[in-house]
């Protein structure tokens, strides 16, 4: 077995036996993530159901409001209570009532003469029951409007279409039946990059700063191996951990959405074809290598495990920034964005989920990320060429870029 093979076997054994790494790379995505999503769906549905059955009080301000609403049966579990406007607003603020309907005095008398009654509904978005009250009042007020309008049109012998010469009828052909691809395009890019980063960051710190702290790095570097071989084994190990974490997450997500996730009244399902899945995996590998290289280079500047962990927080933000940017409206995978490392991976995953990917963009993304991954490997390897990094890590950042220029 070559020195690299021996080192890789040692690193993999060390990582696989580390409970914290297993927790972050396997347990978190496989158990916690789908569990959380499922629990979230159940909680949302239970909450909506509970709110639907909750008795609500709606205050009516002025006799006209009470008379107007009395023309229709009240919504289920809803009681009207007359109050002055000031009393009603105070009660709404104290959450004693859910909404207020205010109709100006005397305006109802003008209704038969063709005048308009303005029914003001006061509610607050800070209060779920208030939103629910608005939802219950809207169809009642709409029905009152419709019946009054029908009467007016009939008295003038006009058709119902008279008041709507141009009717808008938006039909979303792609998503009206299943919101799965849309939700997947929002969740997957952020989630996959997060899991790649989380899966790679912990082993990167453990295998560099952690080894320095435990005094094991010294034992490796006095053996008959080059610093580059030592770093290469760590690089592959961290990339494998990152990939494994992302794949476990993808499988867990596939399982959750494949089985169907109940969100509100609809059940969301996502089914990716083998081609789409293969393309996702192909672009995840260079992304994992890029993240592994960055994490190792940064973690190598730390003297202790704790210091390494502190350095990983800004790195995590740097990695997640492109994933979040990919969610901005109008940001899509183009020839230009395909040249921005990590942003291109996020956008590619998004496009794959929506089924709008183009072959040229896939190629550009893969080439860009692979080249960046090579650069990250060089940066990580240069860190281990330096005596400063191997032992103290002090003044590390200057040394990192100084050693970057030296041939590895």
């Amino acid at each position, binding site marked *: 077995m070559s020195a690299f093979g021996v080192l890789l076997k*040692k690193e993999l*054994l060390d990582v696989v036996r580390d409970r914290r790494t297993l927790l972050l790379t396997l347990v978190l995505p496989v158990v916690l993530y789908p569990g959380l999503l499922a629990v979230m769906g159940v909680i949302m549905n239970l909450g909506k159901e509970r709110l639907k059955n909750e008795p609500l009080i709606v205050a009516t301000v002025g006799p006209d409001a009470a008379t107007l609403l009395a023309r229709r049966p009240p919504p289920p579990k809803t009681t009207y209570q007359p109050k002055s406007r000031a009393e009603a607003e105070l009660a709404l603020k104290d959450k004693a009532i859910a909404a207020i309907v205010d109709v100006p005095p005397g305006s109802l008398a003008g209704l038969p003469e063709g005048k308009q009654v303005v029914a003001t509904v006061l509610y607050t978005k800070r209060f779920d029951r208030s939103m629910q009250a608005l939802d219950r009042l809207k169809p009642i007020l709409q029905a009152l409007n419709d019946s009054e309008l029908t009467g007016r049109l009939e008295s003038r012998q006009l058709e119902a279409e008279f008041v709507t010469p141009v009717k808008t009828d938006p039909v979303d052909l792609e998503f009206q039946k299943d919101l799965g691809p849309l939700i997947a395009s929002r969740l997957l890019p952020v989630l996959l990059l997060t899991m790649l980063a989380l899966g790679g960051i912990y082993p990167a710190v453990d295998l560099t700063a952690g080894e320095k702290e435990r*005094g094991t790095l010294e034992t490796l570097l*006095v*053996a*008959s191996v080059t610093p580059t071989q030592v770093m290469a084994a760590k690089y592959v190990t961290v990339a494998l951990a990152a990939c494994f974490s992302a794949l476990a997450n993808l499988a867990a997500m596939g399982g959750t959405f494949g089985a169907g996730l109940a969100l509100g009244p609809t059940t969301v399902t996502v089914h990716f074809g083998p081609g789409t899945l293969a393309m996702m995996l192909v672009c995840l590998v260079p992304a994992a290598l890029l993240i592994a290289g960055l994490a190792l280079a940064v973690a190598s500047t730390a003297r202790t495990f704790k210091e390494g962990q502190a350095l990983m927080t800004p790195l995590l933000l740097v990695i997640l920034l492109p994933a979040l940017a990919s969610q901005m409206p109008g940001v899509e995978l183009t020839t230009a964005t395909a040249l921005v490392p990590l942003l291109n991976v996020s956008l590619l995953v998004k496009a794959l989920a929506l089924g709008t990917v183009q072959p040229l963009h896939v190629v550009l993304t893969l080439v860009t990320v692979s080249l960046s991954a090579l650069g990250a490997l060089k940066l990580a390897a240069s860190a281990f060429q330096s*005596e400063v990094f*191997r032992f103290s890590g002090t003044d590390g950042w200057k040394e990192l870029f100084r050693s970057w220029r030296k041939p590895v």
Partner: protein
Amino acid sequence: MLSGLLTPLRGTSRIGGVSVQDQPLEARRHLGFLTASTGLYERLTGREVLQTFGRLQGLDGAALEARLTATIDELELSRFVDQRCGAMSSGQQQRISIGRAVVHDPLACVLDEPTATLDPLASRDILELVKRAQRRNRAVLFSTHRMEEAEYLCTRLLFMRAGKVVAEGTTEQLLERSGQRSLTAAFLHFAEGKA
């Protein structure tokens, strides 16, 4: 510098006739290295540590197995060699560390203050390692602040102060030249520049 961890500004060094500067990997195959700060992989078993470092030092197949058996027997590791290092006592860990340093039967050993943080029992293992190496005509570079250890082990002593050699010789020669009765007194004599 002998282990290749630090690059010398000038001069040369050889282990078993192999230049550390020109053939660092080959030179390191002839070197065993142990310091007070070197650690063990806590998630690997003692046997896995010995196998890994034996392979990294160029051993394989039957030769590796033979050296593993010899090291385990010589250092009496068989009772705990298949446990994970993290579950071993500090004395057992120390023995595995010694095994790691000598599993490839090096021509020379560098032991940099290996007993600095150890209790007397664990220190005894290190001292025995040096004695065994002496009996097999292996070179040992032993750095220590404990003069009783130096007196017990060393055939040739170098007193150093601020990175410079201030005296050199056998225990008897140093005592005679300094006119002192103990090695500690002799060291203080030379370190204070009285020679």
